[in-house]
């Protein structure tokens, strides 16, 4: 009973913090300096920490949704969308919106990992995720090389000119997702295998 109350209280707190942070992002002017660098860093750190912690908690709380394929896709779509904005592919002129999408990108990177972990905890799909993830990676590289040109040069170009929109906008999101999928899937595959063997012998 006490545990249920605590969970409910933490969930309400997380929702409250989330709404508060979003309000802060839109109410406080994004170009404000707060009078000192320390305060500005503290503001940014507050936003990042609270947003990441609350989103992780809420995903764990609502894991029944995130263990499904649509639930897993939501953070990935958010990641791709925010990545498009911060790389300048989707133009956002208002500084508060830019800050919002920057924060969303940070949160999405963590959320993608948490969602993958939740999915793999409940579903034994690690091997499939790695296998088909690699297929998507290879075919995207192939089509990109075929239609966008020399990817090595394009990659260097985007490193040298970070101010220009990169044609390799998909690369960051894909690497981020694969970066989560590959280690987590390996752990999940081994874990589920062990679980199945133990259950068989019980």
């Amino acid at each position, binding site marked *: 009973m006490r545990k249920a109350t605590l969970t409910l209280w933490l969930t309400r707190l997380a929702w409250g913090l989330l709404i508060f942070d979003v309000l802060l992002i839109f109410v406080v002017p994004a170009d404000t300096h707060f009078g000192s660098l320390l305060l500005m860093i503290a503001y940014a750190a507050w936003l990042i920490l609270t947003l990441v912690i609350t989103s992780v908690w809420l995903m764990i709380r609502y894991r029944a949704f995130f263990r499904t394929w649509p639930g897993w896709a939501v953070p990935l779509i958010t990641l791709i969308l925010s990545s498009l904005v911060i790389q300048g592919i989707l133009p956002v002129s208002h500084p508060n919106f830019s800050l919002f999408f920057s924060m969303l990108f940070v949160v999405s990177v963590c959320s993608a990992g948490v969602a993958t972990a939740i999915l793999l905890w409940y579903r034994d799909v690690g091997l499939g995720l790695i296998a088909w993830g690699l297929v998507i990676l290879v075919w995207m590289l192939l089509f990109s090389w075929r239609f966008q040109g020399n990817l090595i040069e394009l990659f260097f170009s985007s490193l040298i000119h970070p101010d220009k929109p990169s044609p390799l906008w998909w690369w960051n999101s894909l690497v981020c997702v694969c970066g989560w999928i590959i280690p987590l899937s390996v752990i999940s595959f081994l874990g589920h295998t062990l679980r199945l063997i133990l259950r068989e*012998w019980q």
Partner: protein
Amino acid sequence: MKAPPQKTEAKLNIFALPSQTTLLFGLIVTVLLGTVFVGSIGPSPICTWPLALGLLFLPLRTFLARPERDFARHNLSPAGDDLADLQQAIETNAKAIGLRRTPRLVVSPSKRPLYTFGTRRHWYIAVNHEAALRLQESLEDPDVAPVAQARLIHELYHFKTGDYWQMGYTRELLRTVFLFMAWAATFFCGFGFLLIVAAPDFLQLDPTKLLEQAGNLTPEVRQMLLQIMPSPGEMEAVRQKAAVINLPLVLNFIVGATLPYVIMGGILWGLYWPKLWRMREFYADAGVVQAQGKATPYLSALTQIPLPLLKKYPYERSLAICQQGKGFLDIVREWWRRIKALLKRHPDAATRITCVKDPSQVIDNWVDAAILAGSLTLLLDILLVSPLTILYAGSWPMHFSTLAILVVVSLNLISPLAQGKSVWSDMLKIIVVVVALRLAWLLLTIGLMILLLVFAPDILSETLVAFVASSAHFAGYSDELIFDNLSAFVVKASILNLAQVLIIFFILMVALVLVAFLLRCLLTWYRFPQVNQRLMKVAYLVIGWVALLLGLTILPLITTALLRLTDLLNLPGIIVGALGLIIAATGLGLFIYAHRKYARRCPRCGTAVPGWYHVGKRCKACNALLHPWLIAEYEL
């Protein structure tokens, strides 16, 4: 109308003979896993053993995970207290038929009929909740209780025969092979195309020039990047290595290595998987009637005819179902029904009734056995020329498929021999069909080669180069592969392959005659200790012994003489051949000793029993039934 009197007849106990379900299971595993394992034991263009281990263990893993997936997919839950009596009935019947554990009853809201699933140590019987309640009620009604009990025993026999795990593993094996090979084809084709598209850009890459374009880099960063990137010398080495790789040949290898498995997996799934399903039902049916000692309750369950009516008129209904016309249209209809039946997972009621009445009908006749062995040959021939195994098949082209056919046909011979039938003509017909199928496939290939040689020698040369290159140790390297004399190659290949077909025909005939003779002798070992448990094991040893003799001595000798005459006197080959001969001689000696000791003597009175064995044979002196364990007795 007066019902004919009931009688108790001696029937063939199919459980005492090699299981057809196990045979089919073995066939599918041999085709899919055997070829990959052969590829990993022998020479192969790529390292194949991880693939072999993966294809062995991944299906096992998914097989273990299957029950929880079924639970989730069909919303299954353990049966509650309202079904305690049914669970109790399952336990009682499980003990009665000698199951080592009791399956758990689980209920589902879906309308699926009674079915079984599970792993090696966790067994489940699933049923719709309402149907479970009805079944429980039926078990309490003396009029229909035997029918309900028959349905339960039928499901329990799937565990008794072990077909649940064979089915489960086969399903996962077929699924894994299909998915893995489809994945490998998609991934490696993508990778190959990427290499083709990116290779020119990558090979022309000049890291120094690339960094020069970046004017805004500090000298330190530039130096650091230069250290990370490959040096001009390293790039040149890569260029030289890449220059001799023929990327289209790499793609050819990928497609050649994966596509046959996808297609063969599909054929096995389409034709053999339904046959495995049907076969397991026949065995479960046979189990029910043997366990109940009478066929009527189960026939009632099969035909839905009320048990009292079936008891009163036991034959009419089943005869009506089995009756067939003799007109042309009837024959066409009958063949069409047979073709459709090939794809069905459950046999029709008429066939099941026939098999219940005469269990020997479950065993494949010569046509079915020939189709089974012939298709096995074709599947193996096609899979063994895939790039993964062609190097092995090139060195030892006759081994794998010959031994597989020998084992399959030998196992199929045991049942007719036990029934006292003559197997010589059937055996000859089976081997003729097998060899004819192989010959047809070979003639098709040779004909195509000759056509290309006459009309398009360039295409033939390119095809052969691609074929050889795809199986070369460095898949994709083709700088030294040229066919100077195409016609000589075609003639030599044709002669060697046709010779192999004839050699295999004679080897198989001789080996099978030997096996049939030994098995027929073996069936007269009436005084053999614990004969009901050990005789079939000896039969398997006999088949294994002949296979060993062929595999170690005869086939290597003939293959070496045909393909590498100069290697005929090499020491390892001679040692292995001699070892095979020693084992064969020892085995034969032991067999003759045992035959003299145990054969053709009545186990009860010790009087000589002349002639070969057949089901129902009795000692003329004391009238003792010989090999009673080969007989199943139940009322029809």
